[in-house]
Structures are given as structure tokens and as C-alpha cells.
């Protein structure tokens, strides 16, 4: 029983980070219809920003997270405005290849600059745990889950309540109508991309705080983002959180009761099962229903 509870807790805590990793990916996919393969590279980039600030300035990673988010926002905004915008109307494989090229470029720049060594952002408290009976809850992961929930809630409020947020939703539902309403779609798309990169950057710092990271991890994070988005439904922020928690749980239980080597296989099995049965996402209606391409 304790084993089961511990696996459940581990899964939920890991799920929080996965949710934050996938949140921005889902937003960009839902709004701009672009599957950003380079998303995982944003996560790793954020981790490096946090690591560098901690290493050279001794900055607390939770503050470093804010800086990383700001830096990544600028990077994301610029990339969308300057490059991704060039292929927004192109067929699917073009955007996939473009962002794959960006990912390849970024990962190898990281390897060149920082080597492919595994790094982590050490803190005294993150590795300590709270003991609840037989179940151990590491503080770092608990904080990470908290950040994920706060970010999701913040994003929901932003998108629902603010002027820019509404413009993002409008552009996501119908680009040409949004344009007629006087919305600067290029700017809105770039802001969406920037937000997505900022969330990925923040997630990266958390990843570095509770574990390790290295450039080749980028691909894995892109993949997890995909699973999270599909589980939660495109552009559905609450869905992404739930999708992340679900993926975390599946991975934890498979790792606990089957084999740790099967963790990724389990994620794919879940993904394919969901795509085969409910292509519009597991959890409720997708937000941008008209965007769903599958029958």
C-alpha cells in the first residue's frame, strides 16, 4: 500500500513538471496550429539560464526561473516573428521540419557551448523531503507542482480576462475574422509563442532544480509535451495540467510495477490509444474545436 501511495505521489509530482513542460506547447498548437518540435530546446535553454545564474551569481533558482521566463519570452517572440511566421500557412510537414531544424541547431549549439554533460541546479532544500507516514514528498518537487498549478491558473486568467488574452483566443478560433476585428495577428501569434517559450523556460529551471538536464533531453521534452497536449486537448490549459498529471501517474506506476525501461513505451501506448479512440483529446471537449484536423 505504501508502495502504491509513494508511486502515486511521485507520479503527481512529476506530472506537475510535465504539465508545465507541455502547457506552452499546447497553447501554441491550439492557437497557431503549429507543432513546435523545438519546444524541448526551450526547456533545456531555460534550465541553462537558471543554472548559469545560480552558478555565477548564486541566484536562487526560483528567482532564476523568472529571469529564464523573461529571456525565453523574448527569444520565442523573436523566433516566431522572424522565422516561424514565414511558414504559418504552409503544409504540416514544413512547420514540423522547420522546428525540427531549429531543435537540431539549438541542441548542438548547447552541446558546443556547454558540452553534453548532465547538470543540475543544486539547492539545499529541494532534495529534502517531507515525511507523511511512509510516503516521502521531496520539497523541490512539491514546489515544482505548486509552480505548475500557479502558472496554469495564471495563464487561464490571462487568456480569459485580459485584452491580449482575448485577442489570442480570437486569433486561435478564426484568424481572418480576428484580423477583420482589428487584431494584429502577427503580434498576437508572436506573443503566444513567447508565452509558450517562457513557460518552457520556467519548466526547464524546475527540471534542473529537482533533477538533471543535458541538451539531448530536448527531444524527450518535446515528446512529453505532445502526449500532454493530446491527452488534455489542444490549447486547453486545464486539460494540459490534467494531461501532465495523468502522464506522470502512468509513468510512475509503470516504473513501479512493470519496468523502468517501459516508462516511455507506456507514454506512447497511452498516446496511441487516445489518438485511436478520441483524437480530439481525452479530457472533455477541445477548446479550439474547429481546429481539430482528425475526423
Amino acid at each position, binding site marked *: 500500500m505504501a508502495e502504491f501511495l509513494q508511486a502515486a505521489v511521485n507520479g503527481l509530482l512529476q506530472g506537475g513538471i510535465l504539465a508545465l513542460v507541455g502547457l506552452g506547447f499546447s497553447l501554441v*498548437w491550439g492557437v497557431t496550429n503549429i*507543432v513546435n518540435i523545438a519546444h524541448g530546446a526551450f526547456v533545456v535553454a531555460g534550465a541553462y539560464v537558471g543554472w548559469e545564474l545560480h552558478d555565477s551569481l548564486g541566484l536562487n533558482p526560483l528567482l532564476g526561473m523568472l529571469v529564464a521566463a523573461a529571456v525565453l519570452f523574448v527569444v520565442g517572440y523573436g523566433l516566431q516573428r522572424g*522565422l516561424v*511566421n*514565414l*511558414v*504559418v*500557412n*504552409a*503544409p*504540416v*510537414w*514544413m512547420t*514540423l*521540419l*522547420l522546428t*525540427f*531544424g*531549429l*531543435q*537540431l*541547431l*539549438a*541542441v*548542438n*549549439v548547447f552541446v*558546443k557551448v556547454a558540452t553534453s554533460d548532465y547538470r543540475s541546479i543544486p539547492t539545499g532544500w529541494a532534495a529534502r523531503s517531507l515525511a507523511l507516514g511512509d510516503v516521502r514528498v521531496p520539497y523541490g518537487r512539491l514546489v515544482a507542482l505548486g509552480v505548475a498549478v500557479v502558472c496554469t491558473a495564471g495563464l487561464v486568467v490571462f487568456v480569459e480576462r485580459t485584452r491580449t488574452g482575448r485577442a489570442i483566443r480570437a486569433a486561435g478560433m478564426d484568424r481572418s475574422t480576428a484580423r477583420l476585428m482589428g487584431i494584429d*495577428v*502577427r503580434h498576437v*501569434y508572436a506573443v503566444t509563442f513567447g508565452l509558450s517559450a517562457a513557460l518552457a523556460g520556467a519548466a526547464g529551471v524546475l527540471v534542473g532544480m529537482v533533477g538533471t538536464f543535458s541538451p539531448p533531453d530536448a*527531444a524527450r521534452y518535446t*515528446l512529453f509535451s*505532445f502526449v500532454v497536449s*493530446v491527452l488534455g486537448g489542444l490549447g486547453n490549459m486545464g486539460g494540459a495540467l490534467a494531461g501532465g498529471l495523468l502522464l506522470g501517474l502512468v509513468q510512475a506506476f509503470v516504473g513501479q510495477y512493470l*519496468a523502468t*525501461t*517501459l516508462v*516511455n*513505451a507506456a507514454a*506512447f*501506448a497511452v*498516446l*496511441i490509444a487516445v*489518438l*485511436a479512440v478520441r*483524437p480530439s483529446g481525452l479530457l472533455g471537449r477541445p477548446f479550439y474545436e474547429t481546429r481539430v*484536423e*482528425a*475526423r
Partner: protein
Amino acid sequence: MTRAGAVVAAAAFAVLCLLPAGLAPGDVRTMTSVLLFATLASAWNIIGGFAGYASFGNVAFFGLGGYSVAVLMTKASWPFLPSVAVAAVLSAAFAALVGLPVLRLRGHYFAIATLGVAEGLREVVVNLPRLTGGGAGITIPTLGARATTHYPGTTGFYWYALAVLVAAVAVSAAVSGSRFGYGLRAIQLDEAAAASVGVRTTAAKLAAFALSAALTALAGGVFAFQQVTIYPERLFSVEITVLMVVMAVLGGAATVSGPVVGAFTLRLLDEYLRRHFLGTHLIVFGAIIVAAVVFLPQGVVRCSADAWRERRLGLLDTVRAYRL
């Protein structure tokens, strides 16, 4: 195929037949890899180009082909040729099986579902160590009593790779001019309209996927035997899928010659960068992919045909068409 196309193909084939005589063994190995990638790109083109279903998991069939050959030669002591034939049939059957659910998906969903199939298959191979050797790999016996087939050596594999490429190009050419090919293009251009004129869309997509899988498995089988020891990480690498897509697309998707042109250009360029920019060649390669997608999305073959006809190079035309 047009008459000019047939002449060019015959000339290219003649050059490729003479090539091993004039090259150093290392260069023959490079050319073998070029031929195998040209096969992969041509095979991808049948489902991804003609039918327009951008499979991002075709490496599954490469790995399945390679592992089928390795397992049959090692555990069942089969010779190479029957093993590779069975590998192709197995991969086609597997494609038809997974095709039933995943070919109902479109666009990104199809791309990622196929990616998931490939990654899932790799995990299965890793987790069946008795059959596949698991993560530690499997070694095909090439010497002594357990060897079933004489190891063909550098030039021998060049001929195998060339034979496989000829098969892939012949199949592509046959598909391109046939009713089946028209059906696939109709599906690519508008699936609802295709069905409304009578194209059996599900059957056509499954057939294209299975055909693509069989050709991909042939290349995988040759590659596995050439490598002797194969590992799941290598045979199911996502990068192989991406390379075949990039090659097919940059050469010219849904054309017969495009994937071959793309594979030769990119694989030789990659080799050049590897030799002269060791350490940064993947960075340069990434930048080339980005630039090529933005400027040459119609592919080299179509772009040069248009440039020839209109007497101007329209690199920015596609940017104008696709930007926001």
C-alpha cells in the same frame, strides 16, 4: 515516365554501376549509405509524398526490417536473401495493421501517432532481450559455422544497396503513372473529393503505407547485415525518419526523382560538413534544414523546373505564399 526521364535514369544507373571501380573503399561505404537513404526517401515518398500522409515513424519499418533480418539469420539460421524478403513482407503486414487506426488520423495527429509507433516498437525491441538482444544489441554471425551467408564486404553491400534503390525507384515510377498513383494524389489534394469520385481511400492509403514499409524494410535489412551488430537506439533513431522526410521534401515530394536527388544532395553535403566542420556540422545541418524549408518547400526538382520554364529563380515566391 517521360523519355527524357528514362534516359536520365539509365545514365545515372550506368554511372552508379561504374562508381565502385573508381572510388576508395571509404567512399564506396559513403555511397552505399547515400543509396540506402535514397531508398528510404523514395519509400517515404509513397505515403508521405503521393498520398500526403506525413509519416514521422517510417524508421519503424527500417528497424523492423533490420531486426527481422538479424533475428532470422541468428536465431533461425536463415540465409540473408530469404530473410530480407520475409522482413519486407512482415513490415508490410505490420504497416497494414497499425495503418488501420493511424491512417484515420490526419496532419499533425498522423505524424505524431506514427512517431509514437516507431518509439513504441523500439521499446518493444529493448524489452524482448531473448529474441532481440535488448539494449545490448544483436550480432549476426558472419564467420565460422554459424554464418549462414558469406559476408559480402564493402563493394558487395554497395550492390545490394543499389539493387534496393532500383527497386524503390521502379516501384515509385510505376505508382506515379498508375491509377493507384492518381488515387493517392487525389487523396493528398482533397480526400473528400477523392472519395466522392470513387477512390477507395482506406484501401489506397493502407496499400501505400504497406508498400512504403516493405521498401523501407529492404533498406533496413541491408543496413543491419552490413553493420553486423545492431542496436535499437540506432535502428529506430528518430533522426533517420527526419532525414528521409527532409530528403524527399527538399528533392521534391510526390515526384519520382525528387527523393533521390534530395538524398544524394543532403547525404553528400552532410558528409562534406562532417569532414570539414567536425564538431559544428550538426549546427550547420540544422541551419540548412531551416533555410531549405523556408526557401525550397516545393523541392529542388520542381523549383528548377519552374526556374527553367519562367527563366527566373523564385526563391521568395513560396515565402510570400506561406507567411502570415
